[in-house]
């Protein structure tokens, strides 16, 4: 019963949300990129570069705000590389993503050595300030402050809603979906397919970069390889959520939830070996995919380069 109490507590909810934030941000990026027809396995590397950029930016300027900006820009630049390779050069998008992930691991470590003379950690930097909405003191208001007072969490929430509106309500969104479904059709109507795709991939870089910013600035430092598979989980969430912002966000909460559950289960001293508890989120995903979601149909032109010529 201690477990149930644990699960239904506010603390659990906050933890779930905190864990989900980087997933959600990266997954929103994934939705933009993939909806426009560009597979983005590079999310993992983008997160990593975003995290490094944010920490380095903060370290150099002393301001976490500039740091966050640097993280987003690092993400956008990484995404730009992915875009150039897969749109301009029409290379295989999955390979491009895999290569960029490899590159990001190498580059962040290389510059970690140059700037911080370390193979594993940066110096500690300022983080994002959490605002006190309620007077601090008792546990409850502290938790509310952690949630509502955290600008990154609020921003994430906003981004999810915003993404939905952009994709489904605006002219830009209509073109974005068209380009991902049937680029030839869009092209014949005078839409610049590849320009649209560039824009979407770069947006995805900004968002996944922001996921990195969360990791870097929430930890107040960069640690080698700190993206730790989150980009892949985000991709899974995009597919799970059927390429819709809300769906993907919910999938992220599911992943975040099962991780939080795993932590709660472990701390409550259950006898299940840790290794099995560790498996929960992944098993859950597989079962859900096989059982409930089944075939999720991707944007029809996903992964296919388009030759405008």
């Amino acid at each position: 019963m201690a477990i149930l109490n644990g699960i239904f507590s506010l603390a659990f909810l906050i933890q779930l949300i905190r864990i989900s934030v980087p997933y959600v941000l990266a997954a929103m990026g994934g939705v933009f990129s993939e909806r426009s027809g560009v597979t983005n396995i590079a999310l993992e590397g983008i997160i990593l570069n975003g995290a490094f950029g944010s920490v380095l930016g903060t370290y150099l300027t002393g301001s976490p705000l500039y740091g966050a900006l640097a993280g987003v820009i690092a993400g956008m630049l990484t995404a730009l590389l992915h875009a150039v390779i897969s749109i301009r050069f029409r290379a295989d998008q999955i390979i491009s993503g895999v290569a960029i992930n490899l590159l990001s691991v190498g580059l962040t470590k290389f510059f970690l050595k140059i700037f911080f003379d370390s193979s594993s950690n940066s110096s500690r930097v300022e983080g994002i300030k959490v605002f006190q909405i309620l007077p601090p003191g008792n546990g409850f208001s502290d938790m509310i402050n952690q949630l509502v007072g955290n600008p990154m969490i609020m921003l994430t929430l906003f981004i999810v809603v915003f993404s939905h509106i952009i994709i489904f309500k605006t002219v830009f969104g209509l073109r974005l979906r068209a380009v991902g479904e049937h680029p030839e059709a869009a092209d014949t109507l005078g839409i610049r397919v590849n320009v649209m795709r560039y824009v979407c991939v770069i947006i995805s870089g900004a968002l996944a970069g922001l996921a990195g910013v969360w990791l870097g600035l929430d930890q107040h430092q960069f640690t080698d390889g700190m993206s730790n598979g989150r980009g892949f989980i985000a991709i899974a969430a995009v597919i799970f959520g059927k390429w819709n912002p809300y769906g993907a966000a919910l999938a992220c909460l599911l992943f975040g939830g099962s991780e939080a559950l795993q932590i709660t289960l472990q701390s409550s001293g259950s006898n299940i070996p840790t290794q099995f508890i560790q498996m929960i989120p992944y098993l859950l995903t597989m079962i859900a995919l096989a059982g409930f979601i089944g075939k999720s149909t991707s944007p029809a032109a996903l992964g296919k380069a388009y030759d405008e010529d």
Partner: protein
Amino acid sequence: NKPEIKNASTGDKPKLRVGLVFDVGGRGDKSFNDSAYNGLQRAIKNLGIEAQYVEPGEGSDRSSALNRLAAQNFDLIIGIGFIFTDDITNVAKKHPERKFAGVDFVVNQDKDGKDIPPPSNVAALKFKEEEGSYMAGALAALKTKTNKIGFIGGMDIPLIHKFESGYKSGAKMINPNIEVISNYAGVTGAAFKDPAKGKELATSQYNNGVDIIYHASGSTGLGVFEAARNLKKLAIGVDSDQYSEAPGFILSSMVKKVDVAIYDIIKDTIDGKFSGGAKIFGLKQGGVSLIYDEHNKALIGDTVHKKLEEINNKINNGLIKVTL
């Protein structure tokens, strides 16, 4: 800031060439590897040696790195981490003319429980983490207000279990009813470098009433400190003195004097006193200890400090036996 470190002083006799191969985390982990690095640097400065280091990372590069150093006429080759045990043993057999040292080197036992000694050109530098952790457990138990303390390990492996069980025994000795909550960050090497996970694990423990957490999780522990800072709780560091990672929130650190061990073995080699076999660094030898200095004096307090000294003495005298 080049990794190739050359001695500045020029002596007459040929300098001792020391090669060092780091553990998975590599330099800059702010604990284990950095401690080893400090020992090496001190030796360069004070003993006039020539040194080179390699960071093989995860995987099968360890023995290759050792082999290459051996082939390049390094006199003393040091591997950092228990994972080097077999690699050092094999390479040492192939290069009897060189000397080797392994930090956390595992001395295996035969069927009758007798130690199988490592090759004669290998020094096994072993630390009694359980003794230091026992002290950390006692400290946490003495300081807790909630009667609930926590432990966060990196990868779920025997070496880290040593920390956990020492910590638990120490705490139970002070208060048999104390509740100790343990978490591990994961089951792969990455579990030592996931501070975000560390932060969530710690936050969860603190939210469940834990007020002091001891970690043995490499860079993951940096996340534990972040949680401590955030929630204004206490944490106990590991391997190096980690006070500066979260001043005011680090109750103490259980340090492993890897730097001392490395410095000593280099010095012994220069002095011609190198000998193979196990070198044990326990509480008694000062190889492991709890930090008590001007930074955390106030946090620990006099009475608790006295009590800890007492326990320390008992362990040294064999009145308390820390078993696994």
